[in-house]
């Protein structure tokens, strides 16, 4: 059974409908890229998967999102636990106002991990997973704000991984980074995809071509086409998809 299933999902901001009746399955342990011109609803779709949309004023959601068969918008669902399952990587790195160590430890601490030794080893483990350990192991207790942008993004990745999500949601994760850092992040994603379901929103077509196993193409709030990456890029079925891939619309 696919990990995440979206059924008839629609989202309104006030009276404007931003997502129109989206139905799609997100395959397990693969990298799925969501592509499309700006303003088409990619980020909204992403944020509706971990119910972060509720923090936006005037946002209204209808439809279902099933994770392991359960609708996350049902009344009894524990939002806090859901968000633990879905890690988020934003476009602009958001280090918390604490040290590097405390950033990664934030999630585990909040979820109940107290023992110093456990926390330390967890922090080290996930900094390694994000490919940041070597660069910061000497200065774990310095403020995270002092890291470079590329390092900060990897820190956010480590922070997200530390709560052991099943799904990693990424919103234009390399848009603010220099090419070298971007490359590092992409390599991490490729490795992590063996163990995690990864969803990447990106407006860089080439990035999608490099990373994706699976592609979702969105246009004006609708899901126009979805399928394996090879199929979408080589022989897209819909005219809008073709236009976008050719570069006619962006």
């Amino acid at each position, binding site marked *: 059974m696919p990990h995440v299933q979206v059924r008839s999902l629609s989202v309104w901001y006030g009276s404007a409908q931003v997502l129109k009746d989206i139905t799609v399955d997100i395959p397990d342990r693969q990298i799925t890229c969501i592509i499309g011109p700006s303003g088409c609803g990619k980020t909204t779709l992403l944020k509706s998967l*971990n119910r*972060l949309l*509720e*923090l*936006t*004023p*005037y946002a209204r959601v209808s439809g279902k999102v099933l994770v392991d068969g359960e609708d996350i918008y049902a009344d009894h669902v524990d939002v*806090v*636990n*859901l*968000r*633990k*399952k*879905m*890690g*988020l990587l*934003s476009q*602009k790195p*958001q*280090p*918390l*106002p*604490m040290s590097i160590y405390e950033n990664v430890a*934030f*999630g585990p601490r*909040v*979820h109940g991990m107290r023992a110093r030794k456990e926390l330390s080893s967890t922090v080290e483990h996930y900094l390694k997973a994000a490919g940041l350990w070597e660069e910061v192991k000497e200065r774990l207790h310095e*403020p*995270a*704000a002092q890291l470079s942008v590329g390092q900060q993004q990897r820190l*956010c990745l480590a*922070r*997200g991984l*530390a*709560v052991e999500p099943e799904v990693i949601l990424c919103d234009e994760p390399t848009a603010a980074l220099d090419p070298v850092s971007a490359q590092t992040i992409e390599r991490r994603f490729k490795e992590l995809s063996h163990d995690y379901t990864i969803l990447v929103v990106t407006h860089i077509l080439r990035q999608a071509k490099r990373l994706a196993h699976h592609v979702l193409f969105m246009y004006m709030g609708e899901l126009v086409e979805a399928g394996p990456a090879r199929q979408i890029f080589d022989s897209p079925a819909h005219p809008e998809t073709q236009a976008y891939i050719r570069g006619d619309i962006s």
Partner: protein
Amino acid sequence: MSWRHIEERAFKGLMLFSTALVVGSLLWIVAVVLWKGAGALKLSMLVQMPRGGAYGDEGGILNGIVGSMLLSLPATVMAGLVALPVCIILQDEHAGRNPLIRTARLSLDVLWGIPSIVYGAFGYTLMVYLGLRASVLAGIIAITFVQLPIVARAIDEVMKAVPRELKEAAYATGATRFEVATRVVLRQCLPGILTGLLLGFGRGIGDAAALIFTAGYSDRIPGTLAEPVASLPLTVFYLLGTPYPETRARAYAAAFVLLVIVLTVSVVSRFVAVRFRRSTVS
């Protein structure tokens, strides 16, 4: 030269004159009080109590200094304890829709402008109702009211400025509202909160009108919360009108000390606001 240019020159002159006048007046105040106060201040005054009765001609202003601290410091703490929860509610994500938030902001706006004499009068009604006399406790309560809108507004400004994406990132790790508010938002705003508290303290320590009703005056340092207490502003107020120059000297000294404290706190608070910004995330 055309008329327009004459007009321009004239107004430019007027503007310079006004600016000089305004800034000059403000500096004149500081100069007069510092000069007069420095002339009257003897180091011994800072550590002695007034001797020879309230209108006696010896001793110092220790009662006023200690009294002001006894009143303003707890008031600052209390104002902070009220302001922080309110500001946490105010920065909540669903702002705009929530009537609680809008009413609270309105209330803060209302409280902001209320003159301190009105807070003093209210303190008096509370005292009558609770059976209190002029005392440290009543004074603290009155000064808390005076400081509250200032502290709350300052903290609100910093908390409002916390970027939504930062809070979203924290929520995304599965933290609860309370955890995000206390572990992330508060932490991010710490310098701003400190600045707000300092600003409030500076305002509270200089206030006389609220204390007239509530704190009374005393030549001694109170031993309990129920006794009346002196304060620097009231020391100036009461002692200024005496015919004895030595007593008046104590008034000037008190004004000097008060001004120095207020200006120092003000400058320090600005320093804190600027310097500690880099250790948090912008």
